């Protein structure tokens, strides 16, 4: 564990130095990420100047759905930024070096490119979330708040499993470009409560691509609207997906025959 922490620390320091040494680029990326959060948040607030509720949810509740989506989405990006370069790492041969290093290739491929710009974007999101949670007059030390935290962490675990699947696909096929962007694009639907999408799509977003489980369930639990049955489903799903993604990753690495010269 100490070894992994040390590697992570070294690689993250290098990531930070790389970002600091490119101030214009970093500021541009940071501003872009902040614009994306702020404009959507402003949009939701502006909408509620004209309506009282959206799919039965108040402004604070809708804002909490949006902010929870951002927490899950940004956390996954912070942790798994390296996945975005997985295909390149495989085709250019870097992955071969990861395999001979004395640490997990998955860890080396995905977790060692810590994105400080995303971490900076996450701070105001967390601050806004705490403010909204406070406004919803549910104690932050209540069971509901604890379940919200647990289900949000569970959502990050589900997002992690998708990222591991994508890493496995990159190793297995070497041709599957931009798979991660499909996940990101579909995740767009998590910005709003799943009730918005109607019964058919809700089923799809709960059982096929579980975006609702990732972004809607934590908030419903906080509002006291999620039954224990669904919570059980949520935790079982993340356990199964995590197990399956690790299995897929290992199987992909076993079949890997090196693709570069």
């Amino acid at each position, binding site marked *: 564990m100490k070894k992994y922490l040390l590697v992570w620390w070294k690689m993250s320091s290098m990531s930070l130095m790389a970002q600091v040494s490119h101030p214009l680029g970093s500021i*541009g990326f940071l501003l872009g990420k902040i614009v994306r959060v702020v404009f959507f948040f402003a949009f939701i607030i502006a909408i509620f100047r004209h309506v009282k509720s959206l799919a039965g949810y108040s402004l604070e509740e809708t804002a909490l759905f949006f902010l929870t989506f951002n927490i899950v989405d940004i956390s996954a990006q912070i942790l798994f930024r390296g996945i975005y370069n997985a295909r390149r790492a495989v085709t250019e041969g870097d992955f071969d070096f990861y395999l001979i290093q004395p640490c997990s290739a998955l860890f080396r491929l995905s977790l060692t490119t810590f994105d400080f710009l995303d971490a900076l974007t996450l701070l105001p999101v967390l601050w806004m979330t705490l403010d909204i949670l406070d406004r919803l007059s549910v104690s932050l030390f209540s069971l509901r708040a604890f379940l919200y935290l647990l289900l949000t962490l569970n959502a990050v675990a589900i997002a992690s499993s998708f990222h591991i699947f994508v890493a496995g696909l990159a190793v297995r096929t070497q041709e599957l470009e931009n798979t991660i962007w499909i996940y990101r694009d579909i995740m767009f639907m998590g910005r709003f409560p799943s009730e918005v999408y*109607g019964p058919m799509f809700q089923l799809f977003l709960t059982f096929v691509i579980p975006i609702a489980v990732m972004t809607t369930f934590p908030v419903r639990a906080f509002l006291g609207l999620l039954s224990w049955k669904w919570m059980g489903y949520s935790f079982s799903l993340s356990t199964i997906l995590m197990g399956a993604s690790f299995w897929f990753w290992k199987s992909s690495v076993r079949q890997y025959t090196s693709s570069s010269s």
Partner: protein
Amino acid sequence: MKKYWRAYLISLQETLQRRSSLVMDRLGGIAVMLSLYYFWKTLLLGRTSFLGYSYSQMLTYVLGMNILRSFALTGRGWELVGEISSGKISSYLVRPLSYHGYALALDLSQKTVHLFAAFFEIGALLIFFHPPFYWPKSILSLFLFAGALLTASLLFFFLEFIVSSLAFWTSESGGPLFFFELFIQFAAGAFFPLDVLPRFLQKVLSLSPFPYLVFLPINIYLGRVGEGRAFQDLLISFVWTAVFGATSVYVWRKGLLSYSAEGG
């Protein structure tokens, strides 16, 4: 002119050749369209209008956004940054062609494919979901919309060209381009109609070229802008396009003066 036509045709074939990339590009657009379609549908449940948009107008705005995103807001900014940074533009500079014309030909080919894909997606949505679709009341609105669509496409091309040209002076132009692409989607009304925003923000944006990229063309189609006013707005859009067209040529020439490349 013939060489640009050839470049257009070759690029068209190239875009169609990379079908998996195209499908992935389109999937993103479909997810955004479906998400916003359901959002507005839910919001308008039990209402006849919202901010002056009728039910059919608002849902048509969402579908229209897909067309505008595909035809006006797609570009080759990242390719241009890559070509300048890697020195690949050197090979274009020695050829008997204008880089602006060449880039425009490639840009148009990409937009042609995305426009057809957008029409296909909207057609599928109309067939499967039967949303109330708004048809313009006069044929003139359709022509004005087509004019606004073409102008918006050119305007975005020049704006993106200017931002991407930063690569002549810095290797970090990716950051500003990323910011530009995200900011413009909100400022142009590519996620929601600008009427939703507070009045002072609407006024600030109306002084910029951004609403002419998405918000105005769709409003012309929806007949929310009178024909006289639409002509006037189209004229302003032309002026913005001319101003940014001239600026992009100026920036390009200045950039070439500071451009250097080694190796073969």
